[in-house]
């Protein structure tokens, strides 16, 4: 029996595993890198052990440190989550050697599936359909007899790292070289695998579970075809492209695959599904998948609980062997990334992270209000999953949950995800891997509809805050004047746009203009956190959150993140250039610059000696020495110009 479980992972999956473990009465241990010291999963764990450093190779990939942490805390089992050490057979063996239960398949099963070529041969033999392909160890010659297009990918590891499509022989060498480099850095092995490439297929995978009594069953398929840079971003179960017959075929193939390797625990058999319904084995992921929650929601099962039961030697319970699909579940991965900039990972402080708890919505998050998104790890903030009676209902709920979420401080792919969930082709089930390339409009932000009104809401919330914080006259009408005059103005920046909101409260109501354009806005109420406005007869409530010089506005017509434009420039940025004068009479002892020199602010230019003290005259700004009037030994008078430094204009 497992009594204390060490979770050798981070982020949302560590928290998710711990929640189930704790619900089952199992104590939990976290390991954490330095940037993760304040992460929610560390706080959730009963005990936590630091892994010094930041990079994965120094921390979460250090099998020795993880096992030492288990020993130090008296843990009797290790859950590897996904990624990191989860598909490392050596780690599984080390755990066994240390007397720790490894929550996952046997080391041999991991090893056999870790090598894609070996896995494929094994599947081929077991009657599972496979794609033609070849294994290319480090140093091996490039094959010359391939049918293009060909996919080049890391032989060990997953997640799409190092994958490349090659359409002609001449591009092969570069692709293989690049894939090797990335594979080596991510997984510690530079072996690559070449395989026939199916154009715009669907990515369909089957969840399997095996117990230590030889039973293997499948828990139906998931479709994960919508990917960016070979990373899944939308996953669902069941697949809109799979009917009952195909489901049975896929399930049978997956079970056959599992039985062929004596699979125990939860695993995933991945297939590519061609348009004609034919499917080919891709690989077996010998771990819990990121997207496992969609299976959990449609089957009502807890896969982590199941993993722990199997690890404890129990047979699969009847609710697993007799599982059925109930409704439809869709998951999206919310990433900290700048989609229009090419999915560039984004970092920063997440001042707020709040996803509305709509019925049927599940949030598996690795972050909370105030979390810092660092550049060290995968930029996934959370998985948001919705379960509904039908696919369209699940999509609708999920889209609303995301659209209404308050996500402040870090750029995310939220708009892309909402756009997909509300797109006609997606809703019609047209979700092959070519889906995103066919929809470039989802990747570029449209006109920021409602941004002006959100700026007004931001200004009125700030106004309410000013009044609430006023030390004197707090109860008087905001901005009251007995004689007219200019309105109150406040500036906001959003990307490269600047908005100036001008407003005044008149006896007749609110007068407001954005960039000089009057808006027909009536104020219903304003507090520092909430502003209710009526625009053109439509009343809307905006939630406002200010943090670190930024204002975040969430409304029914969208969200904005504004940089507050300060009323006054930072004085440090407006230092004045000009003549440098002698502060007192004295003798020049050193001249440290020459006319024409480029100098940095604070650089010593001239040293004077007066009254037995040395006085340094320094450049007031970054600039160029345009005049230099003294040399060593000169006597100077007070206020005599020594040099002139001019800022480059």
């Amino acid at each position, binding site marked *: 029996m497992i009594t204390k479980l060490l979770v050798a992972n981070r982020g949302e999956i560590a928290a998710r595993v711990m929640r189930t473990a704790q619900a089952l009465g199992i104590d939990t241990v976290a390991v954490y890198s330095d940037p993760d010291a304040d992460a929610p999963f560390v706080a959730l764990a009963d005990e936590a052990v630091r892994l010094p450093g930041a990079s994965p190779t120094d921390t979460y990939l250090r099998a020795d440190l993880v096992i030492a942490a288990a020993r130090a805390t008296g843990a009797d089992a290790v859950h590897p989550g996904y990624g990191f050490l989860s598909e490392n057979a050596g780690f599984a063996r080390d755990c066994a050697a240390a007397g720790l239960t490894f929550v996952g398949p046997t080391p041999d099963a991991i090893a056999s599936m870790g090598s894609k070529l070996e896995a494929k041969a094994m599947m081929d033999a077991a009657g599972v359909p496979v794609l033609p392909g070849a294994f290319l160890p480090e140093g091996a010659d490039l094959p010359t007899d391939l049918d293009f297009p060909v996919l080049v990918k890391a032989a060990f590891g997953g997640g799409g790292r190092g994958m490349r499509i090659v359409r002609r022989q001449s591009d092969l060498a570069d692709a293989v070289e690049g894939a090797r480099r990335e594979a080596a850095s991510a997984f510690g092995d530079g072996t690559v695998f070449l395989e026939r490439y199916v154009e715009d297929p669907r990515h369909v995978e089957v969840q399997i579970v095996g117990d230590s009594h030889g039973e293997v069953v499948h828990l139906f398929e998931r479709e994960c075809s919508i990917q960016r840079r070979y990373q899944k971003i939308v996953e669902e179960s069941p697949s809109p492209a799979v009917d009952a017959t195909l489901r049975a075929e896929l399930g049978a193939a997956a079970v056959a695959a599992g039985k062929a390797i004596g699979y125990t625990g939860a695993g995933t058999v991945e297939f590519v599904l061609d348009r004609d319904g034919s499917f080919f084995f891709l690989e077996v992921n010998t771990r819990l998948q990121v997207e496992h929650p969609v299976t959990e929601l449609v089957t009502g099962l807890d896969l982590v609980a199941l993993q722990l039961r199997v690890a404890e030697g129990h047979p699969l319970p009847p609710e697993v062997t007799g599982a059925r699909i109930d409704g439809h579940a869709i998951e999206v991965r919310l990433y900290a990334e700048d989609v229009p900039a090419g999915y560039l990972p984004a970092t920063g402080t997440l001042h707020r992270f709040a996803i509305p708890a709509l019925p049927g919505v599940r949030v598996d998050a690795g972050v909370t209000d105030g979390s810092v998104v660092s550049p060290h790890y995968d930029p996934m903030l959370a998985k948001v999953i919705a379960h509904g009676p039908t696919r369209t209902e699940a999509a609708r709920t999920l889209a609303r949950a995301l659209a209404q979420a308050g996500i402040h401080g870090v750029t995310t792919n939220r708009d892309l995800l909402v756009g997909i969930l509300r797109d006609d082709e997606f809703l019609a089930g047209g979700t092959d891997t070519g889906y995103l390339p066919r929809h470039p409009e989802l990747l570029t932000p449209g006109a920021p509809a409602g941004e002006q009104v959100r700026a007004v809401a931001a200004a009125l919330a700030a106004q309410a805050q000013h009044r609430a914080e006023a030390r004197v006259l707090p109860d008087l009408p905001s901005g009251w004047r007995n004689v007219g005059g200019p309105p109150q103005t406040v500036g906001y920046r959003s990307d490269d746009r600047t908005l100036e909101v001008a407003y005044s409260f008149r006896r007749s109501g609110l007068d407001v203009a954005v960039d000089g354009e009057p808006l027909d806005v009536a104020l219903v109420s304003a507090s520092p956190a909430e502003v209710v406005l009526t625009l053109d007869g439509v009343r809307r409530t905006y939630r406002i959150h200010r943090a670190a010089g930024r204002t975040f506005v969430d409304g029914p017509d969208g969200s904005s993140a504004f940089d507050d434009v300060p009323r006054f*420039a930072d004085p440090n940025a407006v230092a004045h250039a000009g003549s440098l004068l002698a502060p007192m009479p004295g003798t020049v002892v050193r001249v440290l610059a020459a006319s024409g020199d480029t100098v940095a602010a604070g650089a010593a230019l001239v040293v004077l000696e007066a009254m037995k003290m040395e006085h340094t005259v320094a450049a007031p700004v970054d600039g160029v020495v345009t005049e230099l009037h003294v040399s060593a030994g000169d006597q100077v008078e007070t206020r005599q110009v020594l040099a002139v430094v001019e800022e480059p204009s």
Partner: protein
Amino acid sequence: MAVLTSLLDPSSETFASNRKQQLEVIAQLDEQLELAVAGGGERYTQRHRDRGKLPVRERLTLLLDPDSPFLELSPLAAWGTEFTVGASVLTGIGVVSGVECVIIGHDPTVRGGAMNPYSLRKTLRALEIARLNRLPVINLVESGGADLPTQADLFVPAGRIFHELTELSSMAIPTVALVFGNSTAGGAYVPGMCDYAVLVDRAAKVFLGGPPLVKMATGETADDESLGGAEMHSRVSGLSDYFATDERDAIRLGREIVSRFHWRKLGPPPAENAAPPRYDPEEILGLLPPDPKVPFDPREVLARTVDGSEFDEYKPLYGTSLVTGWASVHGYPVGVLANHRGVLFSEEAKKASEFILLANQTDTPLIFLQNTTGYMVGTDYEQGGIIKDGAKMINAVTNSAVPHLTINMASSFGAGNYGMSGRAYDPRLMFAWPGAKLAVMGAAQLAGVMSIVGRASAQSQGKPFDEEADAARTRAIEAQIEAESHSFFISGKLYDDGIVDPRDTRTVLGLSLSAVHSNPVAGRRGYGTFRM
């Protein structure tokens, strides 16, 4: 606490016609205020902007705490004179870095911000308000100096500005000058006498004599910058304490300077979360009769002005032509004296005297709501000692040491103006509603008195009395007095601190009470309260 019950019927015809009339009067006021806001007009404002400068009201808006209220004083100064309404200077009470300050800003779009006799009176009044209420002063300086043709009315009294500035400093009331432009000759002593001076680069010009005068006086050829630029004064003369790179930077520095006063108000703080009145202040317009001869119940005004419409009346059954009682406005406790039926009799005078003494005993500020035709005349009243009783009231008002705030709601005639703490009795702030009249007596009465006196004089001299000429003279006098009783005329002469919309009365009083509480609030001690 007793809650006032309004008997006003907002659906009545009287209400509607009263309101209509008041809205017309207010529209006339707004028209005049717009003139003050326009300053030198569009052309000069644009020229000012083209020089990279901000109009004075924009400087003010940047200086004040965002969204804080501002009470502008004497906006109609110089009304009815040859000078622009507002008198080329803006004054008022506003909040800077959380501190209530008096702000005095030249309007350089009006004849270069030159000072005329009305600008001077307005400036001196603002400085007086600062001194009486212990409010720091911020000068927004950009003025070409004296309006030279009026120097005879200006030069001698203008010296008082510098006297006031340094006296404020000696009373530990800080003074700040933000110099945006010309500040020359006498004007140079504004930054000179202030505790803090901020000069704007390549804009401030602070010198006793400019290049032409220097050339004339000594033959020296000099330029503006070396005589009085910000750079020179910041680096060489040391007149400038802070070098501002531009106007906004000067305003930023001004706010920073005030934040370092570590200002503490010395009066007691207001009660928090004061309840608003139970009746809508908007309805005040419907209760004001268009004819000043028709009295109205000031309790209806109080029901729309004081916190929670709560008013505890003192001597409600005695001297009922004057309403006295206790209330609070925006959390500040006050005593209120309000004329009800215009005339002050001996009873009213004695009641007022006692009430003023009571307010002094409890250090409670007083609000005077004027609507008075003066003390009663006639044999019975003279024989009953109305002069002595009126004298008691004027004595009590004069020697009362708690802050007074006075509002002329409709009329302020005769010695009633004195007894109800008119201008000569140093109310800390005094305002009028736009329909209010103020004079020694009503225009018709005054003209009639003149006619009777004329007739008596002719009779005693045995001369014939020209009835036709008398009627014409009477009409002319009545018209002149009527015009000179008008609130705009009175305010133009700086006999009050401004005309306010009646609906803003609660706000104006709240802001004024907060300002007077910058100083300790302490009543007169020495005698007990005389039972009159």
